């Protein structure tokens, strides 16, 4: 999600060199920046964009998994999936709250998501075709998210860092429940194992694309690194994720869908085959198989809930008036 939040971010800023230097000094001293502190406009804009896209990703991310709540194979799985999807909603709300401290309103952010102006992680524009996809999402998508989010706990902007600490604490259950689903399917009947392998085949490449373009093609990373919004490069995080995940696949007898994947003794990590960046950009730009459905579903939820919001506000107004009349 996450590093994709920086795509298109504009870190340009119009303050004096003295102001920028003083700000950079605070960052270099590992001081946290809090909402009321003076900050470069570019810093504020980059964060609003990144935290907003991160929040949208959590909220849209509820949809592919929500698709399987009613069809979970057991009560245990259903309860876990329900709790996970509820967590994702909570994560979206922590993050919206963090973004709002920078002066953007929830309504503006919602509007930008619905109009297509704001992006969310490309991964959620793929469909969840079988139950094994729920396992693959927890294991791979949440696994990749954790890799990205752990360094964000040390982000220079206080409210974002604090929200990420809460998110990371909760996220570990998500990955474990996903891996457990995959493990059980991989150890089941040949059909079940095939279903697990098929899900891995479809989710592996989109998962490693979640880390964003290669460092050489990542335009806005340098400024974000200098401001300590970002702590590791896209390729560094991708490498960590691959090195951690390949042995997990081997352990349950599944095969990574990358014929070029080989252990590189010298660098102490895996080398992987070429990533299909054309597909990545297509999906980022909203041409993923589910892109239209996702936004349609979000809009529908917003519109269908309008009467609830209106009624709640009207009720609050009525109570306020009654209280004043009684005084």
């Amino acid at each position, binding site marked *: 999600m996450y590093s994709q939040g920086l795509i298109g971010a504009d870190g340009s800023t119009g303050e004096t060199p003295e102001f920028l230097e003083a700000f950079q000094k605070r960052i270099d001293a590992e001081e946290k920046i*809090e909402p*009321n*502190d*003076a900050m470069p406009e570019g810093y504020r804009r980059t964060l609003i964009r990144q935290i907003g896209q991160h929040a949208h990703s959590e909220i849209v991310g509820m949809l592919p998994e929500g698709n399987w709540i009613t069809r979970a194979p057991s009560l245990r799985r259903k309860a876990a999936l329900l*709790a996970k999807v*509820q*967590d994702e909603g*909570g994560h979206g*709300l*922590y993050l919206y*709250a*963090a973004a*709002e401290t920078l002066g953007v*309103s*929830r*309504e503006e952010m919602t*509007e930008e998501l619905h109009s297509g102006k704001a992006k969310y992680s490309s991964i959620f524009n793929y469909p969840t075709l079988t139950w094994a996809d729920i396992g693959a999402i927890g294991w791979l998508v949440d696994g990749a998210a954790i890799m990205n989010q752990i360094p964000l706990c040390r982000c220079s902007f206080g*409210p974002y860092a*604090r*929200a990420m600490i*809460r998110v990371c604490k*909760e996220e570990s259950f998500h990955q474990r429940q996903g891996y457990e689903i995959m493990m059980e399917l991989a150890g089941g009947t040949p059909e079940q194992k095939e279903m697990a392998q098929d899900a891995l085949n479809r989710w592996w490449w989109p998962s490693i694309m979640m880390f964003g373009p290669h460092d050489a093609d990542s335009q806005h990373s340098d400024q974000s690194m200098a401001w300590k919004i970002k702590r590791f490069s896209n390729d560094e995080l991708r490498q960590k994720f691959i090195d951690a995940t390949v042995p997990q696949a081997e352990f349950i007898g599944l095969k990574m869908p990358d014929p070029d994947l080989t252990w590189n003794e010298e660098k102490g990590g895996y080398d992987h085959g070429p990533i299909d960046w054309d597909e990545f950009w297509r999906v980022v730009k909203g041409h993923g198989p589910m892109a239209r459905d996702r936004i349609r579903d979000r809009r529908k939820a917003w519109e269908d809930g309008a009467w609830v*919001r*209106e009624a*709640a*506000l009207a*009720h*609050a107004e009525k*109570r*306020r008036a009654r209280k004043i009349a009684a005084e």
Partner: protein
Amino acid sequence: MANEMPLWEVFIRPRNGLSHKHCGSIHAADEVMALQAARDVYTRRGEGNSIWVVLSSAITASDPDQAGENFEPGEKIYRHPTFYEIPEEVGNM
């Protein structure tokens, strides 16, 4: 969107004996719904036994540019215990 949901700051006491601590914010029409939303969003894993919600607009904050006023008063070293000389024989004090 003329009717924006008011913003509330949420404070949680992890357990008795500790202070309420700020943990984030939520939107809600009134204080009853604000408490319910705060519980759903911020205490899914027993993070606290008491919640406060305060309208964000009701908070008055100090200006970070004036943070210099919160200085360590260098010339008032008599505010620190080590300013006073007590003979060693007296023991720990």
